[in-house]
Every structure is written in C-alpha cells, then in structure tokens.
C-alpha cells in the first residue's frame, strides 16, 4: 500500500496525461466521425466510397499497429511530431471510424418517413436535420458513444507501449522501482474504473435528458 502512497505524484501525473489524451482524442474522433458519417450518408458516390474504405480499413487494423507505424515509421518520411501528439492523432483517427459507425446506425434507425414528412412540410435540409433527424438520432447513439468513450480511455493505455508515460506506463515504472505489483496495478486499474464509471454516469444522465417520446 505504501508503494502506492509514496508515488502518488507519479500516478497523478500519469492520470492527468491519460485524461488529457482521452479528452483530446475523443474531441478529434468526434470531429473525424462527423465528417466521415456525413460523407457516408451523403449523396455523392465517390465520398461514400472513400468513407467506407476509411471505416473498413481502420476497424480492421489493430490500434497498436497504427501507433507503431506512426511513431516509428512516419519519421522515416520526414513527418515528425511529439510522441503524445502523435498518439492523440492516431487514436482520434482510429476511434473516429467507430464513432462514424455509431452515428450512422443512429441515423439509420430513423425511418425514412420522418425525413420525407419534414421535407413535405417545407423544411430545408438543415432544418429537417436540426429539428427532426438529429434529435431522434442523438438519443439513440448516446449509449454507444458512451461505450466508445470508455473503450477509448482504455485504448489510450496502448500509447504506453510506444513510450508515452500515461497511467499504465506510470504504474509500470513505479512497479519497477518498488516491485509491489499487486497494489500498484490494482490502484491503476481502480483509476481506470473510476474514469469509466464517471463516463457511464454522465451518459446515463445525458440519455435521460435527450430521451424523446415516441
């Protein structure tokens, strides 16, 4: 136990890096996901194809392979960036594919009649999206997006494998010093569980607030 308490600053630093990476890459992933889903449900065949290939490619590659490729491979073609930045960008691109799929299944869950009725009433594309489609789509995707957020938090730990010192790497380092694996790793695990529990709580509240009567 004292191994955990003596090294609280290291753990805290690791947790902060994990939270920063989670927040930054989730924002990035949301932006990527929005763009990709817009391309995928839009009427332009070329953009549809590009978005489909993007989603299929990223969902079928291990995140660790992408991280290794970006961290060790890209400097070879003159693309150099900070380690943490690289990891954040890669995680955002990867999770963006999953967010796009979650959003798409939310949009697909709405019956076509809703959009047709909106257009029949004379709403423009933007209006029908804002007043009819999105409110219904959002309430069904809150839970999947929450699950993606939790998985993303867990996935930031893979950055430890390419040298970013976040919570998992911090735990590993402290363990190398103190050699008391059980309290140290359990402590780190509890920190992740706490983040996930917060995320679950928040998504529950958002879901109740967005729930639409049907």
């Amino acid at each position, binding site marked *: 136990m004292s191994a955990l308490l003596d090294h609280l600053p290291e753990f805290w630093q690791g947790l902060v890096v994990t939270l920063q990476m989670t927040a930054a890459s989730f924002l990035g992933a949301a932006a990527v996901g929005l763009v990709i889903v817009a391309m995928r*449900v839009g*009427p*332009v065949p*070329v*953009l549809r194809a*590009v978005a489909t290939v993007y989603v*299929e*490619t990223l*969902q*079928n*590659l*291990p*995140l*660790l*392979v*992408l991280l*290794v*490729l970006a961290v*060790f*491979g890209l400097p*070879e*073609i*003159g*693309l150099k960036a900070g380690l943490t930045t690289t990891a954040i960008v890669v995680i955002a691109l990867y*999770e963006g*594919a*999953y967010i796009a*799929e979650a959003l798409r299944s939310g*949009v*697909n869950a709405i*019956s*076509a009649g809703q*959009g*047709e009725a909106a*257009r029949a009433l004379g709403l423009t*594309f933007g209006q*029908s999206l804002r007043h009819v*489609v999105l409110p219904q789509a959002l309430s069904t995707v809150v839970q*999947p997006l929450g*699950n*993606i957020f*939790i*998985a*993303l938090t*867990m*996935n930031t*730990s*893979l950055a*430890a*494998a390419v040298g970013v010192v976040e919570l*998992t790497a911090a*735990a*590993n380092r402290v363990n190398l010093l103190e050699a008391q*694996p*059980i309290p140290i*790793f359990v402590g780190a*695990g509890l920190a*992740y*569980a706490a983040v*996930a529990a917060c995320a679950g709580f928040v998504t529950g509240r958002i879901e109740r607030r967005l729930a639409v009567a049907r």
Partner: protein
Amino acid sequence: MSGLLFDEPGPRARRRIRLATVAGVLVLLALVALAVRQFAANGQLAAERWQPYATWPMWRYLLGGLWSTALAAVVSAALSMAGGLVLALGRLSRRRAIRLPAAAYVEAVRTIPALLLVYLVLFALPRYGLDLPLFWKLVVPLSVSNAALFAEVFRAGILSIERGQGEAALALGLTHGQSMRLVVLPQAARRVLPSIVSQSVGLLKDTSLGFVVSYAELLYSGKVLANYNGLLIQTYIVVALVYLVVNASLSALARSLDRSVAGGGGPRRRKITRVPR
C-alpha cells in the same frame, strides 16, 4: 435513391453532386501526391527499399509471425468463449450468489485496459512464483479480458430467444438446465455466430499486444525484422497490410453470416454496435 435525408436529386442537385465528386477526387489525388512526395523526398521509394518484400525468405518469416498470431488468437478465443459462456449463464442464473459475481467480473474487466492485465501477468505473477511461458503471458490476459466481452455477446443471444421457447420446454417437463441446454442454447448459438466472428476480429487485433510481451506474433516479428534491416516504414506498412487482409476477410465473413442468419426468419435481433479495442 430517396431516403431519410434527401429525395431523388433534380438537375440542380445532380450538378452539385458532380461538383462534389470532382472536388473529392481532386482532394484525394492531392493527398496521394503529397504522400508520394514525402516518400520520394526521403528516399523511401527507392526500389531496393521495397525489393526485400518481394522475396520468399522475408515472407516466410512474416507468415511465421502470422501463424503465431493465429495460434494465440485461436487458443485465447477458445478459452474466452468457454469463460464467456460460463459468465453469461452465471449472469442469467436465478441465484443471486452466482449472478452478482458474474456481473461484477464482466463490469470490472470491461473497465480495465488489456495492456494493464498484460503488465500484471508480465511483472506481478513471476513475483509470486508463476513465470508462464511467453505464449501464455499473451494468451492468459487476452482470455481474461475477452471472456467478459464474449459473456455479453452470449447473454444478448440468450435473451434474444423468445421467452415462450424456454417456458414451453419447462411446460414439457424439462428441468431448467435441460431447457437451457436442449432448447435455448442451440437457437442462441445460431444467432450469435456473426457476433462471435466479429468479436474474433477484435481478439485477433488484441494479439498485437505480443509486441509488449515479445511473443513472436506478427507485429513483434515486424519489429524484429525492422530492427534488423532498417526498413522501418516499409516493414510496418507490410505488417499492417497483412493484418488488414486477414481481418477484412473475417469481417466480410461476419457480414455474410449476419445476412444469412437475418434471412433465416424469426424476429430481427438487436444489432450490437462494435466497440473499439
């Protein structure tokens, strides 16, 4: 092509679609040109840097890595499916004493990164006198974490079977266990087959943690190769392509199974959205 978001395009919309097509293609070409320029400017397009990947010994080595990947994936899939089935049945048990621990396991493991479990097996167990061979250092943590995921898949499958099936079995005088084994599980198994295959894609992706364990699966083999021949980006691109081919085939299989299961009549089960891993 009428639907939720737009009607059959009229002349003006068709013009806009053509414009967007041209713009999209131009942006795509620009990106490709940029990538090629970066590769060329740093001399990474030189033939001798790609030539090695046209030779058999290189592929023999990488395919050996792929074989180890497959081995680890198959063994931990078998272990985690067995564990997942037990956990799913446990969560659906009528006894609280069984239900609660199973639920706790699933919920707890879902919120612990697989890498942390790998570190635990890698660094904690040896201290308590349990030094597993490399293969098991990868397979054990993967099985522990994937058992929880398979448990949720199986539970969803069992719950998707109409209550009447189980009730009819009980009315015929089968015991609870018999109705589960003879009536519910065989039907659930067919429904979860597509989800099992797409979970296995996730499991196969997880085996890349062998990179950390230094178990010679595909990604770690790639690392060793890259350190040996200095062709970093080429090696990792080839490794990524191998993963892509294998996983995309499995995903395609899952989709076609999904279609054939959906076509088999019966109510459509709820679609499970994939979660990144």
